[in-house]
């Protein structure tokens, strides 16, 4: 149900990613880079220094040919709620440069506030946070495509997926102007959701019964990444393959796969 906080309707934005549909094509990654002015360098093959707010992981079932199997898993920031907004990264940031927005459930990052201590990166088990090791440089002329709704980051700060928060702001402003109390599901969609050619990503208010994600997250084959850590993420994954669901968390050898309880 929708939450009311002091008369204000609050949302809990989240995603349901259908891994059966995801083909690992990379559209979500590029859509995100293009939308959010993510910088690039000549050599981006060191994936530990390559900023990809949305990253598609390749999972394998570890079996030999020809029983081997592959699954692709897009990983945006999981926008952990933890318990009561105590997400792993927000609680550790010394300068209040990242925040859990109770209004939307979005974990924000204030680039001009961040002074680059990288504690949040250490706190995040999903490697969803990226540091600007280099000055962002666009080849001459290419800075023309930069999106004015998202400020390019400077060297020395941490950045990450914001669930395209600027789109939320735009949608909110528009809803306000139109005299609407609520933001329509269509009015606010992330760039990756919109781009996904397989329609594998669904985005919306997890608490709003009118939004598709509300029901999708209750599917039987749903899981979240590292649920045991108590990160309480807002990105749900669906897979019909058991080994994929099991890859979502760590299990002791003696342990069976937890049935999705919701």
């Amino acid at each position, binding site marked *: 149900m929708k939450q009311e906080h002091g008369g204000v309707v609050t949302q809990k934005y989240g995603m349901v990613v259908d891994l059966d*549909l995801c*083909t690992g094509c990379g559209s979500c990654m590029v*859509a995100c880079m293009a939308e959010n002015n993510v910088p690039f360098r000549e050599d981006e093959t060191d994936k530990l220094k390559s900023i990809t707010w949305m990253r598609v992981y390749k999972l394998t079932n570890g079996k030999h040919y020809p029983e081997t*199997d592959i699954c692709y898993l897009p990983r945006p920031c999981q926008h952990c709620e933890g318990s009561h907004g105590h997400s792993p990264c927000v609680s550790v940031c010394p300068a209040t440069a990242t925040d859990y927005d109770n209004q939307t459930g979005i974990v924000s990052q204030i680039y001009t506030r961040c002074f680059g201590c990288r504690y949040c990166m250490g706190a995040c088990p999903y490697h969803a946070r990226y540091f600007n090791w280099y000055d962002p440089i666009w080849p001459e002329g290419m800075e023309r495509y930069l999106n004015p709704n998202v400020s390019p980051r400077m060297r020395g700060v941490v950045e990450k997926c914001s669930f395209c928060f600027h789109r939320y702001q735009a949608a909110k402003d528009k809803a306000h102007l139109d005299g609407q109390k609520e933001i329509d599901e269509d009015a606010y969609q992330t760039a990756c959701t919109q781009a996904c050619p*397989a329609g594998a990503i669904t985005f919306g208010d997890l608490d709003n019964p009118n939004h598709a994600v509300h029901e999708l997250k209750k599917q039987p084959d749903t899981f979240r990444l590292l649920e045991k850590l108590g990160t309480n993420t807002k990105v749900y994954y669906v897979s019909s393959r058991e080994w994929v669901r099991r890859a979502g968390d760590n299990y002791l050898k003696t342990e069976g796969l937890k049935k999705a309880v919701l």
Partner: protein
Amino acid sequence: MKIDRRSFLSLGVGVAAGTALSPLPWKLTDDLSIWTQNWPWTPVPEIGESSFVNSVCTLCPGGCGISVRKVEDRGVKIEGMKGHPVNQGGICALGLSGLQLLYGPTRIKTPLKRVGKRGDGQWAKISWDEAISEITEKLDGLRTSGNSHTVAGIAGSRHGTVSQLFSRFLTAFGSPNFFHTPSIADTYQLALQHMNGVSAAPGFDLENADFILSFGCGLLEGWGSPVRMFKANTGWKKAKARVIQIESRLSRTAAKSDRWIAIIPGSEAALALGVAHVLIKEMLYNKDFVDNYANGFESFVTDNGEIKKGFKQTVLEEYSPETVSRVTGIDPSAIILLAREFANAKAPLALCGKGQGKVPGSLNEAMSVHALNALVGSINRKGGVFPIPAMEVQGWAEVGMDTITSAGMNQPRIDGTPPNSLGYINQLPSAILSGKGYPLNVLFVLESNPLYTMADSKTVKDAFDKIPFVVSLSSFMDETAQYADIVMPNHIYLERLEDAPTPMGYNKSIISLSKPVFKPRLNTKHAGDTLILLAKGLGGGVAEAFPWKNFEACFEQAMGDKMKTLKKNGFWVDSDAVLPDWESTFNTPSGKFQFAPVEFSPGFAPIKIEGDSTFQLLLIPYETMRLSCGYIANPPFLTKTVEDTILKQNDCFIEINPKTAQSNQLSEGDVVVLQTPRGQARVRVHLEEGIMPDMVALPRGLGHTAHDGYIANKGINVNHLIGPVQDPVSGMDAAWGIRAKLSKA
């Protein structure tokens, strides 16, 4: 005043304390932090009025509608166009990166004339007038000396107005040598010609099929129209349709399929016929279709009295599951199961064309697969395959044939094929190098990059060396442009007016309108306008064939009454087209579907790839959505998504089964020399369970030597290692791999 130590100390302390207490250090600290938040070298995008302009993406032949977000006159984002029938709002990673091509450093800014040695990259900037007059002078000389046929043109495609204008230019000039970049679509067209008796492209009603038997098609790797394929795949998952992928490598398509059947590559046709064997033997085929609407199933007597084996007899005699199993490496029981499932499905559909279908491939294979569809009646019906007639330009007047033109057009094509054939670009280099026939004097290259995309790039380059004058109309400084004598840069797709014709495999005729979203940013010219200017410069009959003021006029005439719809919707769909039936659509001599065309019948004649037994491994190229391997090279964003198991720094990786690696004493990351009969390259080893033992796979799309630092010199171009293999039936390239060996570097 005497300055003793004490007063000096006091003064120092005083100054320090005074400074500390003044607002100065605090103000400075604050200012410094504000400065770091606004570093002048970190760009601040300008704000402004935001708008969306619809167009079509022509970076690949997929023909997806796009919606370009603009802020004032800047393009800031490309998104999929909602409601476009091909992609329905979806968009691929390459399409999303388009603005990096528009604004990227690899664009050619102005016409160029080579000044240094070929390929050295030394250019003089010239004006458009200079470029046009220099070329027309040269062409005029050839034309008047009766050598008009020694001019050739290579286009990226043979469809679309610009390509047809290009072809028209060569015709009017008097040269039969129009070439295009071939693909599986050409082979399919031949299959349809032989078996359906029509000259058409194949349309697959994928969305309504419920059992997809894919013979190595990279359905999720860019086969057909990529985004449409993703959408179709999602539809299959939701409708619980089944996809069986027959492929030697666990591609993304294989991984997403319901069953992956690894096959010895090159034996796909045998499997198709093995499946046909089971269908026939177990009477699982569509009797109605086979008995009433098909010919050549049973043995028959030809016009000249020969008894020709029918399809049934051939298949029953030669393609038992056991026989097929030996060739394909697939268990007989798996073949039988597959056949039964295929037959029992409501709307089964078999497809072929390896990977993206960049290589035309074996005609035998295409016909065997097509025959499989026929057996189950999946021809010209919902969920099946049906012909999509090619759309010819209607509005243009016939090219007038003056004496020079007809003389030139009566010359044989340089590749030795009949004047009106599709042309075998794969045979062009050897034809040039063999010295038989006539030499080529001028080559025009439009929207294609043969020096990169054609197999055996070294030979292609040698052939280029024999052509004294190469003109590139590329927008980018690609390998071919770099090797040209004159570059007349085309507008980039977002700056130009053109049409995107029906993409390969799409089940309706469709034209999408590419309109100039941006004013041309550089001193470039629409290739259509360039061609018109060249024609006008040549005067005479050539100019008469190009009566238009500019390309826009030419285009509007070509589109005719579709123009209104195009302008309104951004696309035109042949919505009146009725699904062809079995009764009236086979245009063969018998009026029926031909299982065994008189010319030949489908069978399994394996394509012999190059290399002897000293090369113990098989090298196959593979394609991925994250590497653009055609005329367009990877933009930086796309390259950023390439996994570090494919590219690490400048090294690319071969995929190899751990078992094979072990027997070669190789482990993950090892640097090795990959050697084939065509060449060798330094690569690194990536162990991958998802590939058949004794094989190595290398991605297409790497190893550029031109373009910018974001893609150049990364990895190797698989075309350096693979040579073309001529299909014995179609004459087109059918190389699916090459034998190879590895040695430690």
